[in-house]
């Protein structure tokens, strides 16, 4: 097993763990953390993809994608945390259990 393949598989595993957590976790903070784990998985997979070009230099495009992706993930996490804080202030609870169906 080559190192890039190992990294790529680890990335897929992290992504799966994160997605699983996002779906099953009941607590909002855990869901936000799961999203970050899944995001790291995707980024690791992308970094492993940079090995696809032969020669000593890795492909720069996946790196550019990961940098952009990290910025997006940080902004999304910030927004999620802010919403959790607002919600916590008004309800003093932080589980998604609330039902607002018709």
């Amino acid at each position, binding site marked *: 097993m080559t190192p890039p393949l190992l990294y790529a598989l680890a990335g897929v595993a992290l992504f799966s763990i994160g997605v699983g957590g996002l779906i099953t976790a009941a607590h909002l903070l855990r869901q936000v953390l799961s999203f970050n784990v899944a995001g790291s998985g995707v980024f690791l997979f992308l970094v492993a993809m940079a090995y696809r070009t032969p020669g000593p230099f890795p492909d720069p495009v996946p790196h550019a994608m990961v940098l952009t992706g990290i910025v997006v993930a940080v902004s999304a996490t910030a927004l999620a945390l802010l919403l959790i804080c607002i919600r916590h202030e008004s309800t003093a609870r932080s589980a*998604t259990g609330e039902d*607002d169906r*018709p």
Partner: protein
Amino acid sequence: MIAPDPTIGDPWWVWVIAGPLAAACAMAVFRKLSAAFGLLAGLIIAGLAARLILLVAEAGAVKTEIGGWAAPLGIELMADGLSAGMLGITALVGMIISIYAAAYFRPHDGADPSNPPPTLFWPLWMFLWAALNALFLSADIFNMYVTLELMGLSAVALTALSREPAAVSAALRYLLVSLLGSLSYLMGVALLYGAFGTLGLASLAAELTPAPAALAALALMSAGLMMKAALFPLHFWLPPAHAAAPAPVSALLSALVVKASFYLLLRLWFDAFGPAATAAAALIPGVLGAVAVLWGSVQALSAQRLKMLVAYSTVAQLGYLFLVFPLAAAEGARGTAWCAAIYFVIAHACAKAAVFLAAGNVLIGFGHDRIEELRGAVQDLPVSMFGFAVAGVSLIGLPPSGGFIAKWLFVTAAIDAGQWPLAAVVVAGGLLSTAYIFRFFSRAFAHVTEKHSCCRVHPAMEWSALALALCALALGLTAPPVIGLFQVGPPLLETAAMGGRP
């Protein structure tokens, strides 16, 4: 090293993206003038979009590299008929909703705690508009991811604008679903890049083979986008979010934001994934779409609140869009099905925005939107209710409306493809939508003698709802030129075959 070419300036139509971003920045400095900036920017964007439509209709698809940096490190933008048309409908609906919002978020004399701070709506809406325009002009799948996230984040922030617990909860659920969807999409992008070494839609279309990596990428990206487009059974986040948001935001979300995810699906399935998107794969979105039509309609029938009814109607109407995939997979029905989906997108954008604005007027006028207690609403809000009725005609699909043309094309495509069950679903969905629309009409248009206590609703808010409804109606009469515009330019396959830039 690819150096930027200083002789190439960016074409003027880049301003449909840069314009709203500039306006959002200006709003951060001059907060009190937000609404004025918003309306001005809206007019300019609408003008540019109209000019781009004329350019594309005349000269065919155009493309550019921002700052002269070539792909893959630079950003490539492309406008064909589909992009320009989506840009146009966004500008039309966005402009009318902006006028509504200027009245909705106007400063009140007495500080009304139920109204959110009016200054925050405008920069967020400008970010959303920039993201939508950039998404429609994107020519590569990674840029599409970035614009998808920009759109999602601004849409979530808009949903939570009122800061009420129900709205914040709905926004959080929306955010988490949206993030899961876009991560899944990004994983697909990574797989495609690993397998084919390219991100451009045109080069992907040329190089894609039905390899396992391509199939996995198609599955991941489609699942992510279907989640964001609220396809049954991944629609659970949509009704609370769309119902809890302020009226102009509900209209934007239902009319434009969910359509953007569907636009990406269309691009991927028809342009990039040609060889991998087989008839068997196309059956999955088709069946889920058919279930969504029936399930959403039944939920709308049993909704207690008007905004919930309208939101579930969105779930049902989005279901129709996904019928395009199995229909287009059948030889002979491809063109008709594609036109049907496009026409459905624009007709629903106008009609649903009108209905949400009218529902917002009901909420402001009566202070609640419980359907059972809205008997005789037409006596207090005649213009809004007339707008609701006209838009309802398009939602049901009665002639002469945009909705009728779209459903007619869908039924034609289903018959051409020999897929009779889908034709039956379209007809059954039409009957169910008649039932839920008339469930509200039978109350709203009832004759009552006692007066409601009704606050005054700003005339601009009433008339903008009616204007959007009339647009939906007018789309029933303008089908040939509109469909002609959407068909301009590639399927990207043509540009890829011509070589483009080495």
